[in-house]
């Protein structure tokens, strides 16, 4: 095979990446209590953005507001803008069902449906109108391969998803989200409930997914954020304290609070 320099990945970072989400002055309330205090940030396309901060700092609340999962919580409301393709996702006119197909989510605790592995993936596909068996088979295999789970489950696709280990269940949940081909994936501490080996597999998978998806990940694990993310946002008590390229945040933070947090002095 002829090797030319063209085939090698370009290592030079483009100065300005394209943006997929623009957050403007977002405020989120639970009843009277304000959980997020007017944050503004842009999220890069096809990159990994990590949200870090102590428990209760509003990072998960922010994440869940992007695909409107907070709608399920009585009394929760959001003000400001989250722009995606020039549409404000917080607007009442947004079709939430269509939005969640575009912006998928993986939760902290693996939450497969109490159905077979195969049906876990086809559940949402069938709803979105894909009925042909061959097409479904194809997508199931493709998404399980992408989630690095195919080899482990290909012989028992019709067994219950609950028979899988925790790490496998979480990769199934990722596969299920991939199958919908979303533009953005929101990951809410996806590996915090897993053992170190499963955690490593999930991290590897996230790095792989970055090629095709824009990923926003909430994590409590500082090493994880520094290992996999391109940009890191540090939240504290509902405020966005610092948002920069991950390397800068971890080696040369511009805010004192950030430095204290990542060096483990609180949180």
């Amino acid at each position, binding site marked *: 095979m002829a090797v030319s320099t063209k085939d090698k990945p370009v290592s030079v970072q483009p100065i300005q990446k394209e943006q997929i989400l623009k957050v403007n002055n977002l405020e989120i309330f639970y009843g009277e209590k304000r959980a997020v205090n007017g944050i503004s940030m842009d999220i890069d396309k096809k990159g990994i953005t990590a949200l870090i901060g102590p428990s209760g700092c509003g990072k998960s609340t922010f994440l869940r507001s992007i*695909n409107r999962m907070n709608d399920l919580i009585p009394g929760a409301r959001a003000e400001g803008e989250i722009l995606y393709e020039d549409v404000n996702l917080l607007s009442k006119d947004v079709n939430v*069902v269509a939005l*969640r197909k575009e912006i998928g989510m993986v939760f902290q605790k693996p*939450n497969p*449906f*109490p159905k077979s592995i195969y049906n876990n993936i086809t*559940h*949402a596909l069938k709803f979105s109108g894909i009925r042909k068996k061959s097409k479904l088979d194809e997508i199931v295999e493709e998404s399980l391969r992408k989630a690095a789970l195919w080899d482990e489950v290909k012989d028992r696709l*019709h067994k219950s998803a609950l*028979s899988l280990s925790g790490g496998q269940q979480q990769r199934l949940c990722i596969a299920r989200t991939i199958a919908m081909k979303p533009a953005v994936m929101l990951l809410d501490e996806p590996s915090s409930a897993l053992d170190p080996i499963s955690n490593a597999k999930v991290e590897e998978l996230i790095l792989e997914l970055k090629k095709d998806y824009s990923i926003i990940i909430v994590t409590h694990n500082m090493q994880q954020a520094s290992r996999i993310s391109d940009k890191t946002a540090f939240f504290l008590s509902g405020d966005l304290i610092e948002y920069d390229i991950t390397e800068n945040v971890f080696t040369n933070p511009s805010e004192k609070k950030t430095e204290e947090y990542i060096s483990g002095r609180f949180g």
Partner: protein
Amino acid sequence: MSSKTSDRIATGIFVTIAVIIISLLIGLFYFILVNGVKQISIDFLTKPSSNLLAGGGIRDQIFNSFYVLIITMIITVPLGLGGGIYMAEYAKPGKVTDFIRVCVEVLASFPSIVIGMFGLLMFVTLTGWGYTILGGALALTVFNLPVMVRVSEDAIRSVPRDIKEASLGLGITHWHTIKTILLPSAFPSILTGAILAAGRVFGEAAALLFTAGLSTPRLDYSDWNPFSSTSPLNIFRPAETLAVHIWSVNTQGLIPDVKEVANGSAAVLVISVLIFNLLARGIGSLVHKKMTASK
């Protein structure tokens, strides 16, 4: 008293309670079956009942019991399930929802004789139907519906929230999530509720006395036209169920073998309920396994 002794005493008390419950159950079964089973014969099960002569059977009463049960469940289950889904998934928490819940609970604790009187006014007199199977089934629905609503609501609420979020998070509508995720997961509990409701229908006499009546017309089991007056399938005919039959022969029976007929009927009733429960549970667990792929 040391914690060890109190632990022993607690264990002792609970074991005693369990023993009392079990011996009551065994005693009851023994009494009913020993007295009743020897009355059961092919003749007893396949002959219509007699008003004056000894040797009458309970064929029509058995059929009526099952038929009233089926008609009641056809009305109760969809309505109860719908109510449960509304209460668990759509009703906004607040004063109105709490009020509905209180109403449901009050309705559930209504004495069945009162519901029978209500049924007499509503489904017998007001509608002008007279004593009918449909009237009986509607009266039974009135007092089974609250149980069904309550059970369905609890069953749907107890499905883990994260499974529901997963489905909604994949861009699936609320209704489709209820249909394909929540209801299948809640199915075993809902089935238990339906079986409990069915048991109440089977054993109920008071609510049926004034609604489905104390008599059965001459039935022709080869007549399958549900509009014919001699057809067993006609829902606008009076129908005496087994439980009502036991009550009526005991209180106003003119036949010489009252005791034998009552005992035999009681045994048939108990055995039917037992078989019905086992069958419903067996079929239910098969369906659940198929839906959840757990083997």
